[in-house]
């Protein structure tokens, strides 16, 4: 009797393990082998002077991190990325919300508007960067001539401040559709009866928006803020193709700075240290943001 129980239990355990391996195995092989391993290696390499090409790797302790603290270019990039993120996140969410409110107020044509505003998101950021470069360098001056507005005729990608706005404009054009879709869905969860009751009580449309719709939208706001902050801090593709950090490294994002450090100057160890610090900052901001906005979510 005992022996039978034992072999039964053993075979059950084996079957369980077999299933575990089958269902989790492939995913874990790639997840651990690529993400976790790369992350661990990153931490390791950040303490070396590896140049990414040869096999010469020397341990340098905290040298890289000390160098970080005084690296002007890196901190300028951080500053730029931060300023860019503030503008992009605010514009994305405010415009996305306004567009969502406008679209939900209509009955017909919503699909068309929603789709057209969303389409830029489906396109390659890298490829679009070239197109927008063309628009800013050649297209805007033409509009400037036609309309006589000097706003369009300035050297958009030639001065730091306008190049900054150029990037913000392009980024918002690309991302606002996604944010808008989330807000549209969030607005759909606002119960009709509450809105009707407020109408009966004499609420204006604006009051409805600020007192009812917005508080109930906080979950969507949490998600949208999280995503737009992520997009903004991780900007790379369109930065590279539209400005390549120019003019004179004034539109250099952190990702671009790290990329150049590794592939132009061949300082992989140093670049990895930069990347890890970048990761810590982004993670911290994301966690703070989710905590903050989750608290303000309203339950019915």
């Amino acid at each position, binding site marked *: 009797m005992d022996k039978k129980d034992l072999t039964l239990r053993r075979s059950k355990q084996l079957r369980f393990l077999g299933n575990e391996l089958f269902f989790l195995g492939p*995913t874990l092989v790639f997840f651990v082998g*690529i*993400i976790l391993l790369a992350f661990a290696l990153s931490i390791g390499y950040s303490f070396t002077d590896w140049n990414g090409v040869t096999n010469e790797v020397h341990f340098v302790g905290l040298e890289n991190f000390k160098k970080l603290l005084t690296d002007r270019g890196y901190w300028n990039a951080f500053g730029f990325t931060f300023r860019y993120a503030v503008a992009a996140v605010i514009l994305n969410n405010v415009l996305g919300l306004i567009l969502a409110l406008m679209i939900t107020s209509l009955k017909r044509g919503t699909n068309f508007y929603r789709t057209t*505003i969303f389409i830029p998101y489906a396109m390659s950021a*890298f490829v679009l960067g070239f197109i927008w470069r063309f628009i800013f360098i050649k297209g805007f001056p033409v509009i400037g001539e036609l309309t006589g507005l000097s706003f369009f005729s300035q050297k958009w990608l030639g001065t730091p401040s306008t190049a900054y706005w150029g990037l913000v404009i392009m980024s918002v054009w690309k991302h606002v559709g996604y944010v808008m879709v989330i807000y549209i*869905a969030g607005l759909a969860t606002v119960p009709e009866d509450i809105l009707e009751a407020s109408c009966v009580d004499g609420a204006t449309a604006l009051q409805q928006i600020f007192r009812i719709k917005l508080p109930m939208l906080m979950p969507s706001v949490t998600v949208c803020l999280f995503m737009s902050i992520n997009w903004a801090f991780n900007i790379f593709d369109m930065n590279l*193709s539209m400005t390549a950090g120019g003019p004179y490294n004034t539109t250099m994002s952190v990702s671009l700075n790290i990329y150049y450090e590794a592939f132009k100057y061949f300082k992989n160890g140093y*670049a990895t240290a930069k990347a890890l610090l970048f990761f810590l900052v982004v993670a911290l901001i994301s966690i703070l943001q989710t905590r903050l906005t989750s608290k303000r979510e309203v339950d019915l």
Partner: protein
Amino acid sequence: MRRLIGKIVTCLILTVIAAIFLLPFYITLLGSFKSYQEIFLNIFGLPESWSLTNYTEVVQKIDFLTAFRNSFVITAGSLCGIVLFSSMTAYRLLRIRTRLHRALYFLFVASMVIPFPALMLPLVRIMSTINLYNNLLGVIFAYYGFGTALAVVLFYGFLKTVPASMEEAAMVDGCSHIGTFFRIVMPMLKPTTATLVVLDIIWIWNDYLLPAILLTRTKLHTVPLAISYLFDQFNSRWDLAMAAVVLCIVPVLIVFLAFQKYIIAGIATGSVKG
């Protein structure tokens, strides 16, 4: 009456905004048929003649067809693996509650915060060590690694809303875990799979940095990489570039328009859940 005026105004504003949004595509599409000079002289107007020379030149100069094939292979290969492996994992993590599974799920969620630059440099090292550097399969494996986190989270979130009754019934009838998964669970996952497929196609087809790091041989380049050539080596050939951009955009556009129901619904529900 005021409501009607309000609606008309809203419609007008939205139409103007939609037109502005489409403007870059309009310029690019028309530009792809224009000669190099005409692009600069006549940005917004219709081309003098609808010639396809830009397109034919692009296909030759940057070996566009090969790039297209590479992008397709990478995208399709990555998608198959991501969908299959992640759905299996999400099912297992959700239906069998152990501490390990909870920890793994948390790990997947947490990994999504790691920015790509923190991983890209060792990635090259890993790929060369297993001899998959400059190899399409290496890129596909990389996408498996990067894509599973989001996919698992999406499938997990969806499966949470599905009661396990059908699966339990199947298992009572003698179906194994594996059988239950493939026969009962997978068909249920179609909407989430559709959303994931569109999101991942948008990501993988349009990606520049990952293929740029792992593929240096021109024969292996993907479409975005090929397009970047038009700017380094041929000194901003905008005429060719516009044709190339149109060729790059069209496939994703078709997929997106065909599946837009799913992706828009998926983004919406996925976000409401968190």
